[in-house]
């Protein structure tokens, strides 16, 4: 047994030595290993805030559909964490800019990290708004039509939040295109929900007191979808240096990217 332990320790020592040599060599052949490491950290942190916002959103939607006071608290706590994470990413981005003076794609990447984390922070805030409002809707008999509109919206927005994170992390312009289409669908559903909610209000005057809150839920979902689309726009900028709002040229840009 002792012998085996000894062999293991020696193996570990050897491994450590080898990895040190590899790192030293990398430092020599690839001068900005530390900078690269900082960029990777930043990316990991954006991934974390994205995942956390996505989970806050899922919980908020769940609390809206099947009210659960604990879940609401959880969403609010997560929202506080998301705020802290976003502040940290902002500081981290500024510190990398100050110490490394990045240019070109590096600079666009860092700027995008800061902006994307800001969008995820807002999504967390909106998720928390939805969770808070769920309180007013619990045990209420919500008419089927507007409820269907909103759960449908909720599903699409769920996909959009995760697509936006994935588009940024994997620099995937095809996903950005999907985000644009999804956002159009969400906008249409929002209009439909408004119409259905107002119809229900006219039909049943007593329902106005809680259907007002449903209106807000629809609004918050639509805002989250916008934020996801904005992340897509930022991703376009990061990859191509084209200003956001070039949806019409996405096909062309995707073509360009494949060529590269």
């Amino acid at each position, binding site marked *: 047994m002792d012998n085996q332990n000894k062999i293991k320790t020696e193996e570990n020592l050897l491994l450590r030595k080898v990895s040190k040599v590899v790192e030293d060599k990398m430092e020599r052949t*690839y001068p900005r290993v530390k*900078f690269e490491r900082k960029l990777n950290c930043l990316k990991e942190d954006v991934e974390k805030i994205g995942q956390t916002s996505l989970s806050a959103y899922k919980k908020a939607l769940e609390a809206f559909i099947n009210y659960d006071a604990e879940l609401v608290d959880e969403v609010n706590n997560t929202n506080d964490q998301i705020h802290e994470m976003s502040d940290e990413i902002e500081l981290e981005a500024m510190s990398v800019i100050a110490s490394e003076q990045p240019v*070109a794609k*590096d600079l666009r990447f860092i700027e995008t990290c800061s902006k994307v984390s800001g969008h995820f922070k807002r999504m967390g805030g909106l998720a928390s708004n939805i969770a808070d409002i769920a309180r007013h809707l619990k045990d209420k008999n919500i008419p089927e039509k507007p409820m269907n509109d909103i759960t449908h919206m909720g599903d699409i927005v769920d996909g959009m939040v995760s697509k936006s994170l994935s588009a940024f992390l994997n620099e995937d312009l095809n996903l950005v295109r999907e985000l644009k289409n999804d956002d159009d669908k969400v906008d249409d559903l929002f209009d439909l929900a408004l119409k259905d909610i107002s119809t229900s209000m006219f039909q049943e005057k007593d329902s106005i007191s809680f259907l007002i809150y449903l209106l807000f839920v629809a609004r918050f979902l639509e805002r989250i979808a916008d934020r996801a689309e904005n992340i897509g726009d930022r991703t376009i900028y990061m990859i191509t240096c084209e200003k956001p709002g070039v949806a019409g040229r996405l096909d062309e840009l995707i073509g360009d990217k494949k060529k590269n």
Partner: protein
Amino acid sequence: MPYRLEVENLNVYFGESHILKDINININNNMVTSLIGPSGCGKSTFIRTLNRMNDTIPTFKKDGTVLIDGKDIYDPDVDVVDLRKKVGMVFQKPNPFPKSIFDNVAYGLRIHGLNDKDIIAKKVEKSLKEAALWDEVKDKLEMSAMGLSGGQQQRLCIARTIAVEPEVILMDEPCSALDPISTTKIEDQIHKLKNDYTIIIVTHNMQQATRVSKYTAFFLHGEIVESGLTDKLFMEPVDKRTEDYITGRFG
């Protein structure tokens, strides 16, 4: 607008080594152009070709043309002294003459035949003001230039260069030996001087290139890999090698 400087198919050799390869670049009037690139890529050789400083190297050979205001500066009828009056140069290390501050600036004026003391005094004052040194030295013009600080010496060299009213000023890493405050002063001067002069600056400091110049050319292994508007080159370089260099990813 015609270009102040046009370089066409310029090749430079030192003996067997091919230092500059097929350089083509046009440089606009009254504008700052930065030249960037790793050490030994030919930036300094290039600017030294523009005022024929390489002529003193026996193995120097070149083909291609270098036109300043449409005139080939390598034409046999070109007077090199006149050329260097037209194309001034500021070097990496401040190199004032071991003379008084006044004489340093007056030196060029005198060798170009100016004798009137009043005019010389006026031009010295004007040059020192343009180089933002006047207020610091006006009471000690007879003091040796060697007693000035590094940053002051470099500004004195700039004053000496602009005293003879050149059209083009070449600057070979003018701030690399200076502290950040002196660097800022010289960069401020470059901003002001560009209204009257065409400036070409070699720099290893990318941030300096983005601060002072409108155009940038990236040199690598004796070639110009990419040139264009500075903002574009630093934000959205076209060539992979440019991106690798400016982002510090050169293996």
